[in-house]
Structure formats: structure tokens, C-alpha cells
């Protein structure tokens, strides 16, 4: 009698599979029957009978008892138009009732969405670079892999001229167009008195078709004639005003007259051809530069980019494979040693995938920025969503009673769920609307900082789809807790006020997850603060770096159109009395120019790198830029022998391994072949990137120069000096526009990339902190409200305002400190990685961490204190009297 429990397996089967509605009674009945069979026919029989009968009440044999239908519930759909209208009405009333929370909620979400959208648009712009050119998917640049010292290196943005001819002749069926071009070149484009130094290109006749220029006037054809030119719209406007530019004559470099045959829409910033204000026939470049004649059949002279458009039925891989060996047979043995391998670099890859290692594309700097900003955008958005979720869960407690009453008067769960969801959908849609406005307002500023021309993609259906989908997703995510958890509560319990004790576990997990989310928010915020501070520190460090020369009052002029009158101009300028010195150089001061190998000196060992920066200057250069000698002397105009003299910088001295370099001989193989004597050593001058080591550089006064450097007298103001300089120029070279650049401004441009990172990062950081604090503010106020009674009792029992303030703030301070503890090592890790890429970099200092920690804590305390002090000062009588 005692062991008359039914077989366990069968019983288990029953509990698992039998419908829940009738499980209890069936379980009881079968148990009773088992006992009956056991007593009548013994255990084995009973077991078999039990098993059989259990099977008879399992699906599919069993009939389900239909739940009793309440007469009120019939035909209640939670998604009828009337109900939806009601949900929205209630949602709207709730929003307007709690104005502060609504503002925090919607504002925070809108700001987060706006940041994400800005970054999203920026990334979209980066990814769609060059798509202005309609056939971008078939356009490529001809480049090559070469082997140097056993390493495969990729380059050759410029190719030899005959390669273009060869591609067209031997592989013509692979291409629609093969276009030889120059790199962007600066020339004076003039029409009458209007003259401008402009960057443009000389390209073969198919270029307008390849680039699919959008013609404003004229046609794409016509570059076959030698003396023609196409102008960008802006340049045409500048030259001719509103007049018709077609068939007008413009002068290039004050020498050649050409006819305008077309005007094209300016190429956008998001094109690699953006700096093309004019396109002239490639052959014209030859008549402007005599050296081009020699390049025509020289396979060793890599001076011209080649752009191609492949035939519609080909792929880049196929064509690359065919033209791979196009160069090799034509090269002299010495050049052929590098085994150049020609390939096509597709236009869609130009912008983000142009860094190669071992012949393969690797993550480039721009790609890293795309990822970097992408992550930041995601984080800021996440912060906003967390806020939204946190505030709605916190607020949901107050609404438990509402749920109870609604259920008591007959709401079904589905209705409550849809009500809460429609509320969060409403909030996120309103936020999305505000976000669009914010983005529209921020775009001009953002474009200026990021150097972009981004617009909101109003007409792009995919953009809308993504945005709406995202807003809905946010709404569902943050609305899901109240929607699904609260709607499940028992009305009796909530109305009795048993909510917090009755469902303690649910409530605790909500509080715990909220804490985790706050920690997460502040981890991100703190990490962003640390990061931004370090970026600025790095910029500051580079800015304070001693540059080795004096940039102030130094102007540089391109010598376009000077036509050998440099000395006359120099004398004229000196005569104005406002100029301290005039010098010439092959490159502007803030550009390190070219580099060359093939140098030899006493004590050179094969392992020494003989790659030096090489700059041709005039004898007065040193005085103009104010370089500082470590040893030896400057060039002198009086000594003719100085034309075979050299001045080197300290880095070069070290690279050559010379202790006493003065008087040593240096032989040059390639660069201005000859033997030189070292006259002096100057301190390193930071001409290229201020974040990198200074390159070993040598200066010579032989050869041609391209830039004139003018040092204004230190006692004369620029304002007074400039008109006099202009007058002096006009008397000698009236055809040349008075175009100049300030050396210090040019130098400042070198920080552009880093300053952009700094500006954007600090913008995002401020927003991240703002959003986090909004959330904290809301949360703190809920905490204070929830504990109103507790605070009242504490005050009655004699707690001071200070104690209560501490009671309420403590928790948040703890959370922020936890966040700080997580953020510090994370930020340190990523920052030290980032700084590694700069040769000249700062060390992350402890006070950045300390400062950001204290900063975050202060902000937190300020945010929370407002609420906690308010709560602490309330008269306990008031807080205890209610209810």
C-alpha cells in the first residue's frame, strides 16, 4: 500500500505533455485509478494499465478543455483603430503629465540618434566615395607591385608614359578608355584682368567620358584639339562672371592661349578628382614642359597617373592578370630588377583601401577612422537607449497601480502590452523627428570640421527605412520591460501595494540591471574624456615642438609665370624696405619635398641608409628662415665654389655617422650628379609632419627652384607690408596673380587631421556625458521619490540634511567609481596603441586619468545632489501625510 506511486517515467510524461488546463484533475484521477488497479491485479498489471491510460490522455488523443470565455472578452482585439487612438491619447497624456521626464527621455534619445545619424551619414559618405563618377565600378588606376630588398611594395600612382600607349595598343579590347593624366598641377589661368592660380589636370581626350563630367555648357568631346580647355563651373564664374564662357580665350601660365570648349559641374569633395578646376589636353602639357618630350618613350620615368575604364564584360582581376607583365620587357636591366607587376586599383577602393602590405590591401588610416567613429556613434546611441530603458523601467514602478486598475476593469494583457509599446514608439518617433532637426542644424558645422559635403538623404528610401526601423527597434527594446513585465502583474497584489515585496525578485533584477547600465554609461563617458584629453595633449606636444626655424612673417609665392625674372623681383622687393630677406627654394618651407638615394661619403657602410631628403635652395634661404647652425657656415653668394657645397641637418649628420662633417666630401649618383663639400650643419627643421622624426636632409644651391620665400621685416606689420609687396610684384610680373601663403598657417594645417579628431571626439564626449547625466538626473529623481517616506521617517528620527544627501548620493558615486575603474585600463590600452603610430608622441600622464575621474565624479555629484538636496529639505510632515 505504501509504495503505490505510479511509474515515474509515465507520470513525468503526463506532466510534460498533458494540457495544463486539465493536468491537475487527470493526474489525480490516474493516481487514484493506479491504486485501484494495484489492489485488484498487482503491480505489473497496474503499471501497464497506467501507461496505456496515460498515453490515452496525451496529445493527439486528448481533447482540450476550452477555457471558459468571459462575456466581456469576446471580440476584444487590442489593435482596433479605436484602441490605438486610445493608446496614443493615454501615451500623450502621460508625456505631458511628467514633463521633466519626457524632456529628458526624448531629448536624450534625440541627441543620441542625431549623433548616430551624423556619424552614419559620414560613414556612408566615406563608403560611397567617388561614386559621383557614374562608371566608378569599372574605373581603375594603373599601379604596380615591385620587389625591393625582398619585400613586395605597392605604389606607382604615377606610371611611365609609354605604358599608356602600350595598354591601348596591345590590350585595347580590355578597356573602354585609357587616359594618361598629369597629377594635379598649379597654373595661372587668366582671362583679361581675372587671373587665378588653379590646380587642374592635363588629361587625354577620353577623360570627360571616363569621369562622366556633368556638363553645364558645351560637350565632353573636344579635348582632341590642342588649344582647348574645360573649366569647372566655379572657375568659369570667377573668370567670366555671368557671361558665356564658351569659345572665350584663356591664358595658361601667361604663355599659351586656349579656347574654352565646355564648363562642367564642380567635382564634389567626395571625389579623388576634387582639385580639378580645369582639364586641358594632355599634349598641351608637353608644349608647356619641354622635359615631357623625353618622357614619351622613357619606360624609366614614372611621372603620369594612368586611369582606365575596363570593358563592360571584364573584371578587374581578369584585366590585371592580363596586363601583369606589360612593363617588364621594356625595362633596362637595372630597373627590371624590381620585377614590376602592373595591376588595376579599382576606383571604389581608392579612398579606403589604398594601403598595401606585401601586395595586399590592409586596414588604412581612413578605414581606421571609419571604424573608430562608427564605434563612438554606436556607443553614444547605446547610451541614449540605456537612458530610455532605465527611465522607463524606473517609472514603471509608479505605473504598477495603473496596471492593477486597468486589469480590474477588464483590460487584457495584450492591451496593456500594446499600450506600453505604443507609448515608447511615440516617444522614439518624436525623438526621431527632433533628431532630424538637430542633424540639419549641425550639418553645416559638422561639414566644416570634417571637411565634407554631407546632406541628409531626404530622397533615399533606404535611409528612411533604416532610420524608421531603428527608431522602432529602440522603442521596442526600451519599452519591452514595462510592456511585458508590468502587464503580467496580478491586479490584486499591485492594488494592495504588494508590488515591491510581492515580486521582489523581478524588482531586484530590474534595479541590478539598471545599475549595470549606469556603470556602462559612465565607463564610456570616462573613457571618452580620457581619450579626448590625450588627443589634445598629443596635439599640444607637437605644437610646442621646437621647429628649428622662424615661421613668423614668412610668405611663400609659387614662381609660376616669373619666367627668369626672379632676381629682378628680389631686388624690387628688397627695395620696398619692408622685406628683410628674399630667398628661393624648390619646395615651400612646410613641405619636405623630394628624396633621393645614391649618395656616397667617407666611412659609408653598406648597411647605412643613403635615402636623404634633397632640397634645392638659394644662398639667402638660411637668413630668410632663420635656421640655426650647429657647426660650419651658411652658403654665401660671393663664393662661387659654394655651388658645390652642401648644408646638412643634424639627422643627416647622424645618418652619415660623421663626427666632424665640415669639409667632408659627398658624391651624388642620381641627384644633381657631382661631388659636394659639406659646409655646415643646421639644427633639424620640422618641415613635414610634426608628429614624425625629422628626415635626414641635405640642401644645395644648385638647380632650379619653384618657390620664392619672403621674410617680412619684423618691425613692419603685415598689414602695411602686403600692399607694398603687391605693388612690387605688379611692376615686374603684371600677369601673375598676387598669391601667397603664410608659412605659419601652412604649418598649422599639419595639425588638421589630429585637430579634427580632437574636435569631433570632444563633441561626442560632451554629448555622451550630457546624455549620461540626463539619465542619472532622471534616475536620481526617481530614487528620491521612491524613498520619500523613508526620508521623512529618517528626518523625524533626527537625520540631518547632510546624512540624507549622503544616503542618496552614495549609491551613484559608487557606480561612477566602478565605471572609472573599468574605463581606466581600457582607455589606457587603446590610447597607448593609438599613440604608438606617432613617432613623436606624448606619454599618457596619470593626471589625465585623475582629472577625468574627478571631473566625472563632480558632474555626477552635481547632477545627483540637485535631487537629493531637494529631497532632504522637504518637510517630513508633508511627505508622511500623503495617503
Amino acid at each position: 500500500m505504501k509504495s503505490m506511486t505510479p511509474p515515474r517515467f509515465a507520470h513525468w510524461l503526463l506532466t510534460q505533455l498533458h494540457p495544463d488546463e486539465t493536468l491537475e484533475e487527470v493526474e489525480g484521477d490516474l493516481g487514484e485509478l493506479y491504486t485501484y488497479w494495484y489492489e485488484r491485479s498487482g503491480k505489473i498489471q497496474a503499471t501497464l494499465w497506467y501507461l496505456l491510460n496515460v498515453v490515452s490522455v496525451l496529445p493527439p488523443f486528448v481533447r482540450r478543455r476550452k477555457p471558459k470565455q468571459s462575456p466581456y472578452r469576446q471580440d476584444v482585439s487590442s489593435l482596433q483603430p479605436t484602441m490605438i487612438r486610445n493608446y496614443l491619447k493615454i501615451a500623450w497624456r502621460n508625456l505631458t503629465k511628467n514633463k521633466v521626464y519626457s524632456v529628458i527621455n526624448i531629448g536624450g534619445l534625440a541627441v543620441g540618434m542625431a549623433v548616430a545619424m551624423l556619424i552614419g551619414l559620414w560613414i556612408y559618405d566615406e563608403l560611397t566615395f567617388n561614386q559621383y563618377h557614374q562608371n566608378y565600378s569599372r574605373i581603375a588606376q594603373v599601379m604596380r607591385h615591385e620587389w625591393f630588398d625582398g619585400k613586395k611594395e605597392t605604389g606607382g600612382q604615377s606610371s611611365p608614359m609609354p605604358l599608356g600607349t602600350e595598354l591601348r595598343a596591345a590590350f585595347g579590347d580590355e578597356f573602354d578608355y585609357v587616359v594618361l593624366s598629369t597629377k594635379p598641377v598649379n597654373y595661372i589661368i587668366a582671362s583679361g584682368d581675372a587671373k587665378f592660380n588653379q590646380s587642374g589636370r592635363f588629361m587625354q581626350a577620353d577623360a570627360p567620358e571616363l569621369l562622366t563630367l556633368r556638363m553645364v555648357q558645351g560637350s565632353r568631346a573636344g579635348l582632341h584639339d590642342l588649344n582647348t580647355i574645360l573649366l569647372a563651373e566655379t572657375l568659369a564664374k570667377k573668370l567670366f562672371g555671368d557671361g558665356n564662357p564658351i569659345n572665350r580665350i584663356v591664358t595658361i601660365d601667361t604663355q599659351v592661349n586656349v579656347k574654352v570648349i565646355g564648363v562642367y559641374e564642380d567635382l564634389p569633395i567626395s571625389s579623388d578628382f576634387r582639385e580639378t578646376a580645369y582639364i586641358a589636353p594632355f599634349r598641351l602639357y608637353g608644349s608647356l614642359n619641354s622635359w615631357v618630350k623625353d618622357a614619351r618613350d622613357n619606360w624609366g620615368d614614372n611621372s603620369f597617373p594612368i586611369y582606365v575604364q575596363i570593358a563592360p564584360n571584364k573584371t578587374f582581376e581578369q584585366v590585371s592578370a592580363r596586363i601583369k607583365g606589360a612593363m617588364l620587357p621594356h625595362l633596362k636591366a637595372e630597373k627590371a630588377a624590381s620585377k614590376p607587376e602592373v595591376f588595376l586599383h579599382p576606383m571604389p577602393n581608392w579612398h579606403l583601401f589604398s594601403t598595401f602590405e606585401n601586395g595586399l590591401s590592409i586596414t588604412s588610416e581612413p578605414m581606421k577612422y571609419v571604424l573608430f567613429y562608427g564605434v563612438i556613434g554606436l556607443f553614444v546611441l547605446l547610451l541614449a537607449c540605456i537612458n530610455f530603458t532605465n527611465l522607463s523601467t524606473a517609472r514603471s514602478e509608479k505605473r504598477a497601480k495603473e496596471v492593477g486598475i486597468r486589469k480590474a476593469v477588464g483590460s487584457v494583457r495584450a492591451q496593456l502590452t500594446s499600450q506600453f509599446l505604443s507609448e515608447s514608439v511615440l516617444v522614439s518617433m518624436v525623438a526621431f523627428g527632433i533628431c532630424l532637426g538637430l542633424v540639419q542644424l549641425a550639418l553645416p558645422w559638422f561639414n566644416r570640421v570634417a571637411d565634407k559635403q554631407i546632406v541628409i538623404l531626404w530622397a533615399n528610401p533606404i535611409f528612411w527605412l533604416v532610420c524608421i526601423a531603428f527608431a522602432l527597434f529602440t522603442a521596442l527594446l526600451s519599452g519591452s520591460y514595462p510592456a511585458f513585465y508590468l502587464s503580467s502583474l496580478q491586479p490584486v497584489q499591485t492594488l494592495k501595494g504588494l508590488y515591491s515585496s510581492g515580486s521582489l525578485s523581478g524588482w531586484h533584477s530590474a534595479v541590478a540591471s539598471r545599475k549595470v547600465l549606469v556603470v556602462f554609461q559612465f565607463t564610456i563617458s570616462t573613457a571618452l574624456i580620457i581619450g579626448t584629453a590625450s588627443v589634445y595633449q598629443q596635439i599640444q606636444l607637437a605644437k610646442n615642438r621646437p621647429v628649428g626655424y622662424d615661421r613668423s612673417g614668412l610668405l611663400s609665392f609659387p614662381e609660376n609665370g616669373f619666367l627668369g625674372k626672379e632676381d629682378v623681383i628680389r631686388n624690387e622687393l628688397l627695395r620696398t624696405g619692408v622685406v628683410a630677406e628674399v630667398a628661393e627654394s624648390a619646395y615651400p618651407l612646410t613641405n619636405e619635398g623630394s628624396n633621393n638615394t645614391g649618395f656616397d661619403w667617407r666611412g659609408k657602410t653598406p648597411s647605412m641608409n643613403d635615402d636623404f631628403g634633397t632640397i634645392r635652395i638659394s644662398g639667402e634661404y638660411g637668413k630668410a628662415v632663420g635656421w640655426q647652425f650647429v657647426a660650419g657656415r651658411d652658403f654665401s653668394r660671393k663664393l662661387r665654389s659654394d655651388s658645390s657645397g652642401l648644408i646638412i641637418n643634424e639627422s643627416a649628420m647622424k645618418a652619415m655617422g660623421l663626427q666632424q662633417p665640415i669639409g667632408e666630401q659627398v658624391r651624388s649618383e642620381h641627384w644633381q650628379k657631382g661631388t659636394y663639400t659639406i659646409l655646415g650643419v643646421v639644427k633639424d627643421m620640422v618641415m613635414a609632419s610634426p608628429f614624425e622624426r625629422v628626415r635626414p636632409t641635405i640642401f644645395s644651391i644648385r638647380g632650379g627652384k619653384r618657390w620664392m620665400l619672403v621674410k617680412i621685416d619684423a618691425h613692419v606689420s603685415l598689414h602695411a607690408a602686403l600692399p607694398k609687396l603687391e605693388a612690387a610684384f605688379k611692376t615686374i610680373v603684371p600677369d601673375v596673380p598676387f598669391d601667397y601663403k603664410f608659412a605659419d598657417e601652412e604649418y598649422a594645417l599639419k595639425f588638421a587631421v589630429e585637430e579634427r579628431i580632437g574636435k569631433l571626439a570632444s563633441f561626442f564626449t560632451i554629448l555622451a556625458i550630457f546624455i549620461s547625466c540626463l539619465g542619472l538626473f532622471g534616475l536620481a529623481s526617481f530614487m528620491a521619490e521612491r524613498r520619500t517616506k523613508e526620508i521623512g521617517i529618517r528626518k523625524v528620527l533626527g537625520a540631518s540634511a547632510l546624512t540624507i544627501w549622503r544616503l542618496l548620493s552614495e549609491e551613484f558615486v559608487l557606480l561612477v567609481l566602478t565605471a572609472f575603474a573599468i574605463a581606466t585600463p581600457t582607455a589606457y590600452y587603446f590610447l597607448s596603441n593609438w599613440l604608438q603610430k606617432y613617432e613623436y608622441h606624448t606619454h599618457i600622464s596619470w593626471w589625465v586619468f585623475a582629472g577625468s575621474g574627478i571631473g566625472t565624479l563632480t558632474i555626477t555629484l552635481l547632477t545627483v545632489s540637485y535631487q537629493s538636496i531637494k529631497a532632504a529639505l522637504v518637510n517630513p510632515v508633508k511627505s508622511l501625510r500623503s495617503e
Partner: protein
Amino acid sequence: MRRTYLGEFEEVVLLMVAILDGEGYGVTVSQALEEHTGRIVTFGTVHNTLIRLEEKGFVTSELGGGTAERGGRRKRLFRVTALGSRALQEIQQLRQELWQLIPPKTLQLSGS
């Protein structure tokens, strides 16, 4: 004709519920069925029939108190409704009328 059709087995089960007079639930109905008719059916058959009868409105049910021998589980007790008893009576009456119509000879012949 009647709106609801009562099957043969359903009729028997309904009769059992009536016999048990408020004490009818899964176990007692099965046992009574076996005792009075000698039919041994699976519990599922009885269970399903009871549910069906309830859906048709011939019986009502409520959950009764649990007993120790059932491990404290409640039982679902069935009771015949007015509709149910009328249905039974109508069947009974119909049968009687039909019996009246049988010529006495027929049954005697087949009986011998």
C-alpha cells in the same frame, strides 16, 4: 429533430453521471461503466467524452476538494444539467414509443 446529437457512448457516460448524482468524476465514472456495463475503456476515452458533454452543455463541472489519496489534487466533479436530463428523458421516451410500435410477434420469433 434535436439540435444536439448524443452518441451511444456519450449517452452511457451521461447516464453514469446521472447515476452517480454529483459524485461523478473521472475515476467513479470509469468504475461505474465497468461495473454496470462491463465495458473496459481507456481513461482518455472517458475524459474526452466528459469534456465533449460539457461543451454540448449536458453536464457542468466544478473542481472539488482534494483528498489525501489523490496527493491533495482536486477532482473535477460532474453534474447533469437540465438540458442533459431532458435529453436523457427524450431518448428514453423515444425508445418507449418505438417499443410500442414493434409487433409482438417479431421479437418472439427472433428470440426463439
